Structure formats: C-alpha cells, structure tokens
C-alpha cells in the first residue's frame, strides 16, 4: 500500500518533469492549434485564397478536413492560422462588427475595413492571443486585395501573402514563381503548387487543399484531394 503510494508519487514527479503521463494521452494536455499553411494572391479582378486542412492537438490530428477559409462578409474571407479557438472567436467578432457596419453604411464593406477590424482586435489583445490571419476579398473601390495581420497585430497589404507554420518552407518558391499580372488560372496553379510543397515538408500541415476565388461575381470554392495534388520530383 505504502509502496504503491510511493510509486504513484514518483511517477507523478517524473511526468511533471517532461509533461508525459501514460495515463493521459498527449492530445488531452495540448491546446488545439491550426498548425497550417495559408496563402492569398491578388489578381486583376479578384483574389485567390488557399489553405491546408489539418488541425492538430499536439501530435493528434483533431480534424483532417478543416475549412480554414472563413467568410466574414459576402466578398470578404479570412484565412486563419495559430490557435483555433482564438481565430474562431476573432472571426466571429469581426463578422458581427462588419455586418453591423455594413447595415449602417447601406453598402458592401471595404476589405480594408475588415482588415482594420482584425488588426484592432489582434493588437489590443496581443498578449492573450495567438493568431495569424490573412484577410482577402473584393470590393468596388479597389478590386481584389490581400491584407495580412500576423501575430502581434501588424497590418499590411501585399499582392501575395503566406502564413502559418508551413509558410517558412515556401518563401523561396513564392519569391521565385510569383509574377505581377497573373490571371486567375495561373494564380490557382501557383497557390496549389505552393500549398502542396508546404504540406509535404511541414508536419502540422496536410490533408486536402481548399481554395476560394473571390471576384465581383461572387465566391467560388474548390477542393483538391490528396491524390489530385500536383506532383513534384520528390527526392
């Protein structure tokens, strides 16, 4: 009895040293994070947004078909990376604020407005939040736009933006393959290629590639399944 108590005590100490306890699987002690690779590209007439579909808690894949492209308004979407809870909460709040603003204005909101709302929240609560968000969409005034709000709460507009843990691996590919003036098909191929490469190398990204094309006419959603992804000569 005393020996068992001592043994249990010992194992509790060991498990606090390296956070490993056979009694509880790893994923019950980890926060849910959208590991992720996200991307958005502007073209003349709209934007193409893409994301992988893997949500992880530690090493367990909690959802292998996540949709990280979240609608904020009719022609404004956001790509979410970082903590799943934080980004969902922020997106919900901004959707509400933007909807209200749009009713007051009596017209469709600007993409820049949506991006500013994200930035205000991400900057004000920067100590508590872990969220990297790319806001993209189409509006009447400036056409297709991509704004990025990384961790910390900066806001900047970029013709092409990548984010999430998998993005480090594709900076070289994006820098070398992006050209101004690409059309919609070229942007789709570019995005699918970049996401595939990132998913190959980043353990926290994977699954299917989800894409959204936003233009004046509306939003078109596409999914590329694992076996349909572009092939690169892997070593």
């Amino acid at each position: 009895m005393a020996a068992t108590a001592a043994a249990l005590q010992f194992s509790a100490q060991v498990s606090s040293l390296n956070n490993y306890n056979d009694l509880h699987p790893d994923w019950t002690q980890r926060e849910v994070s959208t590991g992720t690779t996200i991307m958005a590209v502007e073209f003349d007439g709209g934007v193409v947004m893409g994301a992988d579909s893997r949500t992880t808690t530690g090493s367990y894949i909690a959802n292998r078909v996540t949709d990280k492209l979240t609608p904020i308004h009719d022609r404004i979407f956001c790509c979410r990376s970082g903590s799943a809870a934080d980004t969902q909460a922020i997106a919900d709040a901004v959707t509400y604020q933007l909807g209200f603003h749009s009713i007051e204005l009596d017209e469709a909101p600007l993409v820049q407005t949506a991006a500013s709302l994200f930035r205000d929240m991400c900057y004000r609560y920067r100590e508590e939040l872990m969220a990297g968000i790319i806001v993209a969409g189409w509006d009447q005034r400036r056409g297709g736009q991509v704004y990025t709000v990384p961790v910390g709460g900066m806001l900047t507009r970029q013709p092409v933006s990548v984010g999430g843990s998998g993005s480090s691996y594709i900076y070289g590919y994006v820098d070398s393959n992006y050209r101004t003036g690409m059309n919609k098909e070229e942007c789709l191929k570019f995005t699918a290629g970049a996401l595939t490469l990132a998913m190959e190398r980043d353990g926290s990204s994977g699954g299917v590639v989800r894409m959204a094309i936003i233009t004046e006419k509306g939003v078109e959603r596409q999914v590329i399944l694992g076996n349909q992804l572009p092939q690169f000569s892997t070593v």
Partner: protein
Amino acid sequence: MSEELLAEPGWLSEEVKTGTTIIAVTFDGGVVLGSDSRVSAGESVVNRVMNKLSPLHDKIYCALSGSAADAQTIAEIVNYQLDVHSIEVEDDPLVCSAATLVKNISYKYKEELSAHLIVAGWDRKEGGQVYATLSGLLTKQPFAIGGSGSFYINGFVDAEFRKNMTKTETQEFVVNALTLAMGRDGSSGGVAYVVTIDKDGTEEKCILGNELPKFFDQ
C-alpha cells in the same frame, strides 16, 4: 545614459555562428556546392565574406553550418585524416570515406558539437555524390540543403530539382536557391560561393551581391 555607454557590444559575449545557407547538388558528371558568406555573433555580422566551402581533398569539399568553431575544426581534422588515408591506400579517397569520417566525429561528439556539414565531391568509382551528416547520421542524397536559410527554400528546391541536369543548369539552380534564401533569412547574406567538382577538376567561383539574380521583392 551611463548604462548604455558601458554596455557591451553583442559580439563580445555571443557565440560565433555561421547562420547560413548551404546547398550541394549532384549533376550528370559531378557536384556543385554553394554557400552564402555571412558569419554572425548574435546580431553583429563578424565576417561578411567567409567562404564556407572547405576542401577536404582535391575533389571532395564540405559545406559548413552551425557553430563556426565546431564546423571548422571538424573540417580540419577530417582533412588530416583523409590525407593519411589516401597515402595508405595510394589512391584518391572516396567521397563516401570522407563523409564517413565526418559522420564519425559528428556522432561521437554529438552532445558537445553543434555543426552540420554537407560532404560532396567526385570520385572515380561512383561519380558525383552528396552526403548529409546532420547530428551524426549519414545519408546519400541527390541534393542536400542546410543551415538556417535552408528552411525557406525547401519548397523551391522540391519544385525545381530535376535529376541529371547539365553543369550550367545546376550552377544556376544553386545560385537561385542561395539568392532566395539570403533574401529571406537574416542570418544569411553577403556573396555566394560556388564550387563545381567533376572529373576534370575543381572550379571555385564567387558571385558578388549585385551580380546575383533578382527575384520578386516588393
């Protein structure tokens, strides 16, 4: 005010690291190695023109990354060991032998050392070969990348590498990869050193910053 004047510059107390981007690629008939030239101690650049491609033998080179001291020492020791070995066998050493010597040191002292060397060269038996020796493993690969800057070009090299490119295509591929990595990694920069090894000999080239290719840079 007085605290700022007395504060030490970072480079006096920080360990010297070769931040780095290194790459080695086989082509039909040889190998091409490439590296940047920046050595940093914390935030200071202590050497902006260091050649990180170190000869182990006439036709075998290694690319250094990680702690500058560790990497240089391993290269010097293996250079000596290879000399002795090649005298004993009365022939040019194999690339595989050089890589194994590097791996032995990296593995035996893996707790103390923090350096990653890529060994590449040409020998009569197997032609051009590239070996990665990260943390004491030894693996032969068609190409290898290493250093802090290599993370940013994983996608690029996966997409653009093809087997059996020509010598010029491979040199261009190496220079493009280095340029892209130097553009994104704060610890890589300066000039690009490129070494080409094939059956006819070894050619060292240095490409200055303004001669590097230009990529999309907003």
